[in-house]
């Protein structure tokens, strides 16, 4: 099938709002002073991410794609990149298969691939990545999930990694489809434990072909089957023994008892503010899961009563990506979840009373034809209000031949936070990098060029990734709004500070964020928490609630810097 060849201008019209923007919308759109430029090619990110068939997907294993990560593997203060990959059903000759790729940041806008040297070469159907220093040696380790065997890579501290899966007690029995994962110190012993989600039970040898079953059609077009009709699986929790090994506590913790879910991205948040990290899992076509930490080593799924399992009418949605952030500046962490086509993304506003309220429509979101995947709350214009970006892409490349209204490739959608509880679609105003049609999945957010604005790394199916450089601050040009980045290190808490909550106050304005191991879709964001500060010259107060339970407060921090904060120590630059 030939690709649709459309100019970015026409793409903008096809993909976006059915109405031409009215005058007020145009004014608000023009006020979003952010432009994203795709610098992937000049940065050296030219290899495509192979994931299944290009024009046709026989099986669901080819469709989900994988995540990406911004993470500083060598601790030089510059975010490096990890791009996961899949493979093809027909396989590749020995030694020629596509591999995950690690790119070292050269600090000049370019990257160098160091995969082989780092020991990260691996061929398979990768899903997600989560990052955390599980052995507390000061270097961030990696856990990558697969259809097949998940892998724990210990960072050796010398720019290399070692596969320690077997040694750590994480080798799986049988073939499972690992999906989301997150390092999490659920028992507050200072050591990072590991939560692993599983999508469904998939038997490639016996999987039905497109069109050969009730769940193998989409509007009459034969497509890959599932997930409905395929058996669900359960999730896993591993407790860190503190000696490089983990123990499976899935059953005793209650995590493994939650059933009938197609689990996808996993993230952490203390939704009820009791100081104990909970785990939220976006689930496809079934209720999403909110594992409430019972503070005794066990979890209970409270997503339904907490109002974040379904939409407001009690209907299940196809949850794929998830972002946690404080979009309305009330210091409570909200959840944003992406969905399938002809549905709207879910914005769950934290009410502060142990449940969420569906604020999707109130915030201005509506049904869209796009399938939405990776997403994040990120303050792209540094005005103190986190915006949203969403990566889109269809799972049925066959459909666009019949229904051009459902294109296989879509834009990245950018929504500006208007500060009144609403978001405005500003995608057409944020540059061609955002509008160029791709079938995207994972995306990560971080400041790869250390210029004080948030960039994005996007995985595209069977194409090179995009590295969307935010040009709010670029070269000598600085936008009028200021920023602050915080890099936290635990001492009594886990070293990566996963689960640490930061609340910044500037006058009467407040912002909250938490350090997470995974979010978006199967991806990992830069661990440095980025806050837009508007025109303020300092943060009046920064409060850090560490996972250990300790709370520290720092006052009067000047803006436009990266602040390193160690638990129990005075803040240093």
């Amino acid at each position, binding site marked *: 099938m030939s690709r649709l060849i459309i100019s970015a201008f026409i793409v903008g019209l096809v993909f976006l709002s*059915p*109405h031409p923007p009215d005058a007020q919308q145009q004014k608000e759109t023009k006020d979003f002073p952010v432009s994203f430029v795709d610098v992937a090619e000049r940065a050296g990110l030219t290899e495509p991410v192979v994931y299944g068939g290009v024009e046709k997907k026989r099986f669901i294993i080819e*469709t*989900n794609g994988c995540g990406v990560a911004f993470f500083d593997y060598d601790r030089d203060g510059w975010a490096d990149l990890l791009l996961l990959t899949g493979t093809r059903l027909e396989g590749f000759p020995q030694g020629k298969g596509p591999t995950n790729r690690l790119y070292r940041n050269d600090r000049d806008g370019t990257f160098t691939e160091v995969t082989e040297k780092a020991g990260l070469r691996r061929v398979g159907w990768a899903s997600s990545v989560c990052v955390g220093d599980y052995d507390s040696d000061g270097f961030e380790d990696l856990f990558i999930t697969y259809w097949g065997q998940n892998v724990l890579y210990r960072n050796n501290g010398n720019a290399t990694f070692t596969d320690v899966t077997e040694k750590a007690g994480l080798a799986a029995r049988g073939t499972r489809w690992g999906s989301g994962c997150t390092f999490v110190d659920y028992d507050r012993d200072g050591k990072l434990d590991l939560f692993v989600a599983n999508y469904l039970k998939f038997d490639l040898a016996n999987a039905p072909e497109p*069109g*050969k*079953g*009730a*769940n*193998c*059609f*989409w*509007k*009459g077009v034969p*497509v*890959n*089957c*599932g*997930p*409905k009709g395929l058996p669900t699986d359960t999730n896993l929790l591993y407790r860190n023994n503190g000696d490089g090994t983990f123990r499976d506590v899935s059953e005793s913790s209650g995590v493994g008892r939650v059933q*009938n879910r197609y689990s996808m991205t996993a993230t952490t948040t203390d939704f009820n503010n009791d100081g104990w990290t909970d785990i939220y899992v976006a689930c*496809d*076509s079934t*209720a999403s899961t909110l594992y409430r930490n019972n503070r005794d080593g066990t979890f209970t799924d409270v997503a*339904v*009563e907490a*109002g974040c399992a*379904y939409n*407001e*009418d*009690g*209907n*299940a949605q*196809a949850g*794929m990506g998830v972002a946690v952030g404080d979009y309305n500046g009330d210091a409570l962490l909200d959840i944003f979840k992406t969905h*399938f086509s*002809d549905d*709207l993304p879910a914005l769950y506003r934290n009410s502060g009373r142990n*449940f969420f309220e569906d604020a999707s*429509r*109130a915030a201005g979101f*509506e*049904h*869209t*034809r796009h*399938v939405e995947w990776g997403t994040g709350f990120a303050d792209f214009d540094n005005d103190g209000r986190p915006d949203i970006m969403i990566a889109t892409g269809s*799972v*049925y490349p066959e459909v666009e031949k*019949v*229904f051009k*209204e459902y294109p296989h490739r879509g834009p990245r959608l950018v929504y500006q936070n208007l500060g009144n509880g609403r978001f405005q679609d500003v995608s057409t105003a944020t540059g061609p990098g955002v509008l160029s049609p791709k079938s995207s999945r994972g995306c990560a957010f971080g400041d790869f060029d250390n210029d004080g604005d948030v960039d994005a790394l996007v995985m595209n199916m069977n194409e090179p990734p995009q590295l969307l450089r935010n040009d709010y601050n670029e070269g000598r040009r600085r936008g009028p709004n200021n920023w602050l980045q915080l890099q936290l290190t635990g001492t009594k808490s886990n070293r990566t500070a996963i689960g640490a909550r930061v609340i910044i106050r500037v006058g009467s304005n407040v912002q909250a964020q938490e350090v997470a191991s995974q979010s978006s879709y199967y991806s990992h964001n830069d661990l440095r928490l980025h806050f837009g500060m508007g025109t303020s010259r300092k943060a009046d107060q920064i409060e850090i609630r560490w996972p250990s339970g300790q709370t520290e407060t720092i006052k009067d921090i000047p803006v436009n810097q990266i602040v390193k904060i160690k638990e129990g120590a005075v803040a240093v630059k």
Partner: protein
Amino acid sequence: MTSTSFRRLPAIALAVALSALAALGQSAPRTPAKPPDDSAIVAQAQSLIDAGKLDSAIEMLSVASRFKPNDVQVKYLLGLAYYRKADYQRAVEHISFAVRQTPETSRQYREEVQILGLSHYMLGHIREAIPYLEQLGRWWPGSTEIAYALSICYIQTRDTGKSRETLARMFNLNPASAAAYLVNAQMLVRQRFEELAVKELQRALELDPRLPQANFLLGEMAIYHADVERGIELLQKEIAINPAFGMAYYRLGEAYTRQLKWNEAVGPLQKSIWLNPFFSGPYIVLGKVFLKKNDLANAENMLRRALQMDPGNFSGHHLLAQVFQQAGRADEAKREFDLAEKLRASTDKEP
């Protein structure tokens, strides 16, 4: 991510179809089929099938099949037994063999075509089902069940011309009439082919600008695709043509809730109820409206009324749970959430 399920004939409709077709089959020319080679086994198996002892029949026939793998009667009866067990894949395997060797003038041949057509349909093998269903339609042109199954197949293969003709026959309409386009559009919407339905509706309105329900369907689809303003406009057009159509007021009220215009939603929803107090939909939406306006007493009242007439509606229970949650009635909220979960799970299990 998800794919939409192929919409099958509901099981009860299928049972009706089978009995209706069995009755119709009685009227087929009675040319006897070829006499079986092992008539005792065949007769016994037939008796077991007629008595509903399908597993026993299958066991007996499977043994016979090992000795006589090409026996048409054995194959036919195996196919029939599997069909009655709803094992359509195996039914197809056996009947496909038998049908090639059964005289086309026999009653058994017609049964075999019927089993193949409906089995392929139930398996979602649309293209394979069509020729058999078309043949059945020629034999029994008055059968609405066959016409329905065939029209669904045409829709699934996006042959809107043939689906319209088939539905027109079923509903005694002129296939070129506005009404035929409307009925076709309704079925297209049910099967989630909204884009094709829009074209049918536009043609229907060209033929008859005051055709009831056409603007309503267009309005529903506009709202579904987030063009709420346009949807409201179309629903108001529908009401101008069809002022006693309660569903139009219901959808109009719902459209206002999509715009968060809670006060504007109340009037149309009330009118919908006054026109038809026996449909739970507007009560549920009104319950949601009152919940959003923080009028918890009225929200509870509306939702309870809805659930009295529609106790299996999980969405209603879910909303009622939210009302209790807002009111701080935690135990009642949990009870309603749990009930909504149970009802939702049983809905998910339905074909």
